[in-house]
């Protein structure tokens, strides 16, 4: 005689009970699994995107300095470099040239950035995967490849044709999908930026603890400047992904409520047959607690099955299936969509939250109506 053996008997009986009401339970598990699949997909995707962005930003400069004119970003004079270099703790300061370019031909906005490696010889570009795909979109041609050419309309209306020297690696596609790297000379031909100006300055700092102090000193030195820390960029990314995840979750709220109504109806409404069974079990010697234990196992088996299948399918969807369902909302980059495979990343805390918000309430909900039936006098079965 043992408590484990009793649990085993009751679990065995529960499993056979579930099998006897196959169609009801299969319908319930299917809908439940679908809801969990959607919720887990959003969680997985948001978390992985944030993780991915953090990994890529690891190589970004610790600090970027911009100049503001009337609250808008303006080219920064290169002579700022000397004064900033003089601040104790600053390892190096480098000017950066970059900007946005609207390509009327493909209808997309590209990010153009100067890369010193393309300065000799000029006339070459390295492009992100999204640029390669988008240039070919809507036309009966293949995506751009090495030695193809891209025409750029310059500030004075003339056309500058640059040759594709290569594609950026797919691993960084999340943030490089719309990127085009050009030489400094070609950049200036397109945008007409004066020689003694840069878009912004990037700084290397010896000690991360001094970042805030150095930023304060820069603003003191050049009141029209705005230092941006890498952590701030990461925070912005996180906020954007959280916000986008929130939008999807809001849309899913309807689905979730529909599921709650279905689960409540299916799980709480005991059929006449189920009530009869409870009566029989009580009459032949089952205690109320045994009936509740059986119903607990029933709820737990249904919700755990749905939970694990839902999580598994969400994992396949996000990490092997390119998150097809949510792609437009979560990964949108104007009209360019990055196409990449996320590195699997699962936060145990998020899974636990999902578990406590779905499995536990469902299991409790299934017990309540049984408790009502389980407390009736067993003699009702004598009159069936």
């Amino acid at each position, binding site marked *: 005689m043992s408590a484990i053996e009793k649990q085993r008997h009751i679990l065995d009986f529960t499993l*056979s009970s579930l099998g006897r009401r196959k169609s009801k339970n299969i319908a319930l598990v299917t809908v439940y699994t679908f809801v969990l699949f959607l919720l887990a997909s959003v969680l997985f995707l948001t978390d992985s995107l944030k993780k991915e962005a953090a990994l890529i930003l690891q190589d970004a400069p610790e600090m970027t300095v911009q100049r503001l004119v009337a609250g808008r970003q303006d080219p920064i004079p290169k002579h700022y470099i000397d004064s900033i270099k003089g601040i104790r703790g600053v390892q190096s300061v480098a000017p950066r040239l970059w900007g946005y370019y609207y390509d009327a031909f493909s209808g997309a906005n590209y990010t153009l950035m100067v890369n010193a490696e393309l300065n000799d010889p000029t006339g070459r570009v390295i492009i992100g995967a999204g640029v390669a795909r988008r240039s070919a979109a809507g036309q009966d041609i293949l995506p751009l490849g090495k030695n193809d050419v891209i025409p750029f309309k310059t500030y004075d209306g003339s056309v500058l044709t640059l040759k594709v020297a290569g594609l950026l690696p797919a691993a960084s596609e999340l943030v490089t999908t719309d990127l085009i790297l050009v030489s400094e000379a070609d950049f200036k031909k397109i945008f007409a930026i004066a020689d003694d100006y840069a878009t912004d300055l990037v700084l290397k700092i010896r000690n991360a603890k001094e970042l805030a102090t150095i930023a304060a000193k820069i603003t003191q030195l050049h009141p029209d400047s705005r230092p941006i820390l890498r952590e701030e960029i990461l925070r912005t990314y996180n906020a954007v992904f959280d916000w986008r995840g929130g939008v999807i979750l809001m849309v899913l709220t309807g689905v979730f409520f529909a599921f709650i109504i279905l689960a409540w109806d299916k799980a709480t409404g005991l059929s006449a*047959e189920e009530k009869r069974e409870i009566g029989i079990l009580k009459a032949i010697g089952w205690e109320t607690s*045994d009936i509740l234990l059986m119903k607990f196992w029933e709820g737990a088996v249904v919700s755990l099955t749905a939970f694990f299948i839902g999580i598994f399918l969400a994992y396949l969807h996000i990490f092997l299936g390119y998150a097809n369902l949510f792609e437009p909302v979560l990964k949108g980059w104007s009209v360019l969509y990055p196409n990449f495979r996320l590195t699997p990343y699962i936060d145990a805390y998020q899974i636990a939250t999902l578990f406590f918000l779905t499995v536990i309430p469902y299991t409790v909900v299934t017990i309540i109506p049984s408790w009502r039936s389980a407390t009736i006098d067993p003699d009702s079965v004598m009159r069936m």
Partner: protein
Amino acid sequence: MIRLQDIRKVFNTDKPNEFVAIKGVTLTINSEGATALKGPSGSGKTTLLSILGCMARPTSGRITLNDRELTSLPERFLTEIRRETFGIIFQQFNLIKGITALENVMIPAYPKGEKHAALKKRAMDLLDVLNLTDKAYSKMEWLSGGEAQRTAIARALINNPAIIIADEPTAHLDTALSKEFMEIMRRLKAEGKTIIIASHDPIAFGSDVIDRIVEMRDGMIVPSGDEP
């Protein structure tokens, strides 16, 4: 020995449809032998049987089982007594659909936490005694009336109870099967079990297995020379 003292059972108390099913029954049933509760439909047989089998509480009166007062026991203890002391055979058999005869027989023992192998062996032995070995793995809905009846008997016996309670056990059986049922009761009586049967079928209460007939009408025991 079961002793009932001035038992009353009222349904829907203080409601317009209040109904008194048992009106002050006093009865003693000895530990050995077979007793039949006889009477027409609505005479209170089934209600009295429910009270005897600890499935329902009386509205007033006292019940003692082997000098142990049952009336005031909490539900948990009543359930334990019902499981350990009584084996109940219902009029409609009340087997659970969709599972095998063997599982149906084993169910009353599940809460006891007995080893599965030992429990299964006991259930198989009972099915064997009742000539149901080849039906052990048949689902309940595939069984004939007689087989379902015998499965219900096996289920009632799985916890080796001292008292067998049967409510209209022959109501859904033909004459041959009804006689077969009474033969099984004879064997159980010979093993020392107390048999209490509620029936208005002469094959049941008229059988020589029955030692004593208690006649009921309108919720009361009809006085006779046979009464204590």
